[in-house]
Every structure is written in structure tokens, then in C-alpha cells.
């Protein structure tokens, strides 16, 4: 029988992968992809808790939907910053973007 622990296990592993991506990647877009993985891991938890712990008001679904919305906002702003940085510095590697003014 698939219980909450199974879903949370997958989510923990996915979170680990995402964190590893964020910590080791140099490219800003790749870091953003790592963040998306971590947000998805959190969402799996929210939705799993809704089913296995507290289904009455589908609170977890609400939280997951807000996270998805904020992820979209974050991607939009983050990618706009990346485009801007690339235009000025011709690199998107975060360890080379180290100027305080462009």
C-alpha cells in the first residue's frame, strides 16, 4: 500500500537533486531549474498531506497552487534578470556576474 512516506520519500530525493543543482551549477538558468525542482518537491508534500492528513478544506492544494503561481512569477523575473545580465556582461554564469554596477 502506497502511504504518505512513499510520496515524501520521492519528494525528499527530488529536493536533494534540486539543491545539488542550485549549489553546483554556474549557469543562472540552470540554478533556476534547480529551484523549480525544489518547489515541485515541496508541492508533492503539500498535496500528499492533503490526501493523507487533512483533506477537508484541500488546504494543501491551495498552498500548492499558490506555490505554482509564485514559481511562475519567480521564473519570469529571474529570466528577465538573466537576459539583462547577458546583454550587459555577455555571460550568465553567476560566478562571473560580480560587478555592483554594469
Amino acid at each position, binding site marked *: 500500500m502506497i502511504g504518505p512516506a512513499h510520496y515524501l520519500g520521492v519528494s*525528499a530525493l527530488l*529536493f536533494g*537533486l534540486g539543491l545539488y*543543482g542550485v549549489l553546483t551549477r554556474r549557469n543562472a538558468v540552470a540554478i533556476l531549474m*534547480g529551484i523549480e*525542482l525544489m518547489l515541485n518537491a515541496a508541492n508533492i508534500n503539500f*498535496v500528499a498531506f492533503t490526501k493523507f492528513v487533512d483533506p477537508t*478544506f484541500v488546504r494543501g492544494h491551495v498552498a500548492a497552487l499558490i506555490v*505554482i503561481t509564485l514559481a511562475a512569477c519567480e521564473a519570469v523575473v529571474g529570466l528577465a534578470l538573466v537576459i539583462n545580465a547577458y546583454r550587459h556582461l555577455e555571460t550568465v554564469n553567476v560566478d562571473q556576474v560580480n560587478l555592483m554596477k554594469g
Partner: protein
Amino acid sequence: MNAEALAFYALAAMVLVGGFLVVQSRNLVHAAISLVPTLLGVAGLYVLLNAEFVTAIQILIYVGAITVLILFVILLTEGATGLRVRQRNEQVPLALLVCGILVVLFLVVLLRVPWGPPTGPMPAYNPGAVGRSFLMPYVLAFEVTSLVILASLVGAIVVARREG
């Protein structure tokens, strides 16, 4: 093994293999495309968790919009021309250690938690339940989220606009 377990393990494999390719691919376009199976797998897990509305939104927003946006930016900036560029920084061993410890910690904790039965039944009509929840108890969160969307819209346009 019953159908649920079969579906769960298949989806979990899809999510984790996809996620591994996302963080591991040297080619950024491959990494971005690997997001597609990962996010679709997560959507599949939502199906198993009776979250139909979240599933549809996950595919619509994550797969249909965010992944496309990421692909777009990769193609507009370095694309695959960055293939010969070093993609990782010098933190790899440290990051492996931190992530490993964190995952083990998570797994230990979640195996020790006693999971009781759920507090009630799932509402029968999922989109309706989500809508009522959004507009009654969580209407403040809903409105604040819409403000954030507006702010990020304006912010993104201002930041990405070419000056002059």
C-alpha cells in the same frame, strides 16, 4: 503489486531520473527538456493523490509555460554554445555532502513519524472544493498572490526592456 503501486513507482522513477538529468546534463537544452518528464511525473503523482485541479494547473503552468520560458532564455543567451564551458563550480564535493545529509535526515524523520488516518474524506468535486477554499478562508492569500503577479509582471518588463 497493485495498480496504484505500479503507477506510483513508474512515476517516481520518471520524476527522479528526469530530475537527475536536469541537474547533471552538461548540455543546458537537454537539462531543460528533461524538466518535461520530471514535471509530468509530478503531475502524475498529483493524479494518484486525487488532486485533479492541481494536476491540470501543473501541466498548464509548469510544463506549458515555465519550461518554454526557460528553453527560450537558454536559446536566447548561450544555447548549446556553452557546451565547452565548465558548467559546475568548485563546490561539488561539499554540495554532495550537504544534499546527502539533508536527504538522509528527511528520510529518517519521515520514517519515524506515525501516520494516523486522515481527518476526514476528500471533497467529491475537486475543482469546486479548491475554488471554495480559495474564495472563503484563503481569500487574503489569493489577493496577495495576484498583487505579486502584477508586481512581477511590471518588474520583468522594466528589467528586460532594452534601454534607449
